[in-house]
């Protein structure tokens, strides 16, 4: 029952993660195309449409190892229990456990796509950036200050869950007013976040801007992840007020206050706006050289909701916590060479984007936030219209003490749960720019997941071999050294498609 409950909880949370994956993508190609200039107004558009054939093959979702069986001894009599025929009954020697991600759409555990523990899938889908229709209106406020209103409508080409009848929704990811002048810029509205922007930008520019990378969700319905989740911290989108300083000797500071985010099922109260910031340095050198360095930060206070049952509340040590993260890196261009390096570290971030709302972020019982770290390197060589890209990255989650060593009357997660340890990605791609607005892409992505594995454990038995129990009737579990199995999953994706952008 515990496993079932955990599985359902995870599956439910993955419903949200399904949405999350799609929302991480990079900014669209920002080439504003003026459509009309009248009465001081400039009406412009930007956008893109594209489609990719994506083939995935590799491992299905790992199966939990079933508990060994032992004779079922009645503790009251010390005698073996028997069935109606008199045959002795058996019982589990240890609790069952669930594996993080069990039931997630990208693994399709037990689903029709899995065959003998292997997956093979083909789809036609959108890539790292979906189809976008963006419209904006600009005009001068003063001689030196402009105001721009912009709304970006995002969608994808594939049907969610391969359901041909599914209705396509439009996600208005961007909608803001911005003011720009010699004093800097202010943006008010919904746009890409600041934290994780450099690594997202690097992936977009040198990696998967015209590719697909890691699909994230097999079910589709959202743009894919590129390298996000495997070392890239996706910036995500949010409502905010952001101020950007003018560039001073190449330095620019951006600070923003963002609409706070709940961690659903974990930390529901988020009363204060979330500050995010980025300090960047940019410099061009020579005829083709360019360097950009950036450091980013994020913080958000979180409190427990008041909707938690007393039994659950008793297992939660803290009533208040915070998510925080630092990130940074740089990208470098010289001649045909493009190179980007980035990393992130922080508490409660998640693998894919900050505050991603999925159960990898926290212990489901104690609500303690896990700490995440990621590294990413992306290179590219540009020869005329051809770009060759190579990338690698990894993101990992540190185990909490309650994930690995704590087992008592109220909680024993180490025996019941195999937490996700690492997601690693290796990628390569060839992109051919047919014209300024048309790009053909072929990319490969190898996705490697690793779990910590549930701890070895056993039900404590009395001298007669019967299970012992706490006063409340729950079985006593003892942890043993080592883990049952540190599961792994390797998948490969080959993607080819075309992007038209303006």
């Amino acid at each position, binding site marked *: 029952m515990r496993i079932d409950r955990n599985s359902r909880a995870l599956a439910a949370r993955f419903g949200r993660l399904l949405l*999350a994956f799609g929302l991480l993508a990079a900014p669209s190609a920002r080439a504003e195309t003026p459509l009309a200039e009248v009465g001081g107004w400039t009406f412009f558009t930007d956008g893109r449409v594209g489609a990719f054939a994506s083939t995935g093959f590799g491992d299905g979702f790992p199966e939990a190892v079933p508990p060994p069986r032992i004779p079922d001894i009645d503790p009251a009599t010390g005698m073996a229990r028997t069935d109606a025929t008199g045959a002795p009954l058996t019982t589990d020697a240890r609790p069952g456990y669930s594996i993080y991600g069990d039931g997630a759409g990208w693994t399709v555990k037990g689903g029709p796509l899995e065959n003998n523990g292997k997956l093979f899938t083909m789809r036609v889908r959108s890539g790292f950036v979906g189809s976008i229709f963006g419209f904006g*209106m600009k005009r001068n*406020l003063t001689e030196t200050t402009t105001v721009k209103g912009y709304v970006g409508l995002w969608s994808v080409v594939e049907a969610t869950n391969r359901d041909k009848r599914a209705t396509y929704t439009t996600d208005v990811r961007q909608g803001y*007013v911005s003011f720009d002048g010699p004093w800097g810029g202010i943006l008010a*509205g919904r746009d890409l976040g600041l934290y994780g922007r450099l690594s997202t930008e690097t992936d977009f520019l040198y990696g998967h801007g015209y590719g697909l990378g890691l699909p994230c969700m097999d079910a589709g319905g959202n743009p894919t992840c590129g390298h996000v989740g495997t070392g890239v911290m996706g910036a995500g989108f949010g409502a905010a007020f952001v101020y950007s300083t003018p560039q001073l000797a190449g330095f620019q500071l951006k600070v923003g206050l963002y*609409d706070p*985010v709940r961690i659903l099922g974990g930390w*529901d109260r988020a009363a204060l706006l979330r500050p995010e910031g980025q300090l960047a340095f940019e410099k061009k050198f020579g005829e083709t050289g360019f360097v950009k360095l950036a450091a980013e930060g994020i913080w958000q206070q979180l409190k427990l909701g008041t909707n938690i049952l007393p039994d659950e509340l008793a297992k939660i040590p803290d009533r208040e916590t915070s998510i925080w993260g630092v990130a940074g890196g740089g990208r470098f261009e010289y001649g045909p060479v493009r190179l980007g390096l980035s990393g992130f570290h922080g508490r409660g971030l998640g693998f894919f984007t900050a505050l991603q709302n999925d159960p990898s972020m926290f212990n489901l019982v104690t609500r303690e936030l896990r700490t995440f770290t990621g590294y990413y390197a992306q290179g590219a060589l540009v020869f005329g219209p051809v770009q060759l890209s190579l990338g690698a990255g990894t993101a990992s989650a540190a185990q909490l003490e309650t994930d690995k060593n704590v087992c008592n009357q109220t909680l024993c997660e180490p025996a019941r749960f195999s937490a996700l340890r690492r997601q690693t990605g290796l990628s390569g791609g060839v992109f051919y720019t047919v014209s300024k607005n048309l790009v053909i892409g072929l990319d490969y992505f190898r996705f490697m997941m690793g779990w910590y594995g549930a701890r070895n454990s056993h039900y404590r038995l009395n001298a007669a071999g019967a299970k012992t129990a706490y006063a409340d009737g729950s079985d006593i579990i003892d942890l043993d050294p080592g883990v049952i199995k540190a599961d792994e999953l390797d998948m490969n994706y080959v993607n080819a498609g075309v992007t038209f952008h303006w």
Partner: protein
Amino acid sequence: MAIVDSLKRRAARVGSPLLACFLWAHSASAEVTLFEKNGWTFYTKGRVGAFVSVGFGDDFPEATEPLPGADPSMPSPNPTHFVAGYSGNGTFGWQSDYQRTTTGKFFTTRVRSGTITNVLGFGLKKDLGGGATANGYIAIWAPIESFGRDKWKPIDADVREGYVGIDGTFGTVTAGRMWPLLGRTSYEVDFLYGHGYGVGFPCVDAQGPTCGQVGLGALHPGYAAGILYTTPSFAGLRLSAGVFDPARLLSAASTHGGVPYQRVPFLRPEGSLTFDTPLGATGKLKLGAEGAFQPVSAVQDEDTDQNPATEAVPVETSKSVWGVSGGFRVELGPLRVGAAGFTGKGTGLYNPFVASDVTGGPAIEQRTDPVTLLTTNVLEPAHAEIRSFSGFHAQLAGVFGSAEVGVGGGIGIVGRVPSDDQNYNLSPAKQQIGLGAHFNYHVTENVVLGLDYMRLMARWYGAPAAVLVNGQPVTNGQRLAAEKQDANFINAGVTYHW
């Protein structure tokens, strides 16, 4: 200004409510022509904006304690009750989205859209000849804040408007999705002199758009598919009449409230009469009155003979909902004054004919037990009585150059149904009052900074007190302590419109 005034007149003729609303809101709020080719005119209208919104005060009230039992040291055995509006925001009172503290209070900060979300509108006009013009318009609305503070929720595009208008000497025919008529004057007053560039009451914490004064005395027409005819102006007098897609009145009906009326076979007629005239060089007077009517019913299988041995038979319970609204607004020099009211059955306090637990209460019916022949009063949600609703609000503003300062207030009143005196399951809604103030600064024709404050004061009647007698709850003619809620919202932000 001549162009703008022309556009204003055109907007009025077209009968495009939002267009009119925008145009009258501020001179700059006009459509921008992008192309003119072969008799076609392609234009855009829209706005984007963002506000920091801080809220604090009482969260939605817990039900007050039932009467104590015989042993006050033990939990009371007497019946507890629901508090009207429990089913969610936009009904009555205000519920924070999981931000409740252990003491029943809340403190929230958000970055969100205001009363009008981001809007991207495109239209195409064609001269049909003979003085007639066709105008097709589609507007996509979308807030900036994620639903429920969930960063990963997509922002769904809401195509609130999509219509064609045929405008000529005969008047205007508009067909499509648009503002209906009931509540137009009420909302127009709020939009123009109150919260057109603000937030006001963020009636749904999870996601906007916000309500301004709506729900607190002002009525918003909502959006609906319809066919509308508007006469030409006769000395400022204009009649509009239309039929709109019917709205079913359905929310889970129980002894805690709600209505089951989802059979709505007929289109809903709505009408308005407006009078619009200039006052001097810069003044203006507008009067408006609106009305709407819709029959509703529910067909449910019922045990009409109170005999469990016989089969239930389908029974249709018929009701009707209706509403009238009206008001005025005056502009004289820097002064802007508007006041409006509404009353009706089933209108609710926010958008007409949107059902919730507050919309109705169970009917009281007498039942005779076929065995004992004893007659008792029972609460029958299947035949729920629909409540009446009334509201009134007034807005006063002064425009001094680029600055506008204003105050406003209103009250929304919920009517009682006969069962309210006996239904110990429910504390009925009584009234919610909103008092607000705003300051807008027009940086340019198209950029407006806004700062506003709104105080919400919601009051309930209190549930009829009941005690257990022989295991059955019996009311004793008293009421439990009435619930109340006071909350405050301070909002500041910017709007860019074209």
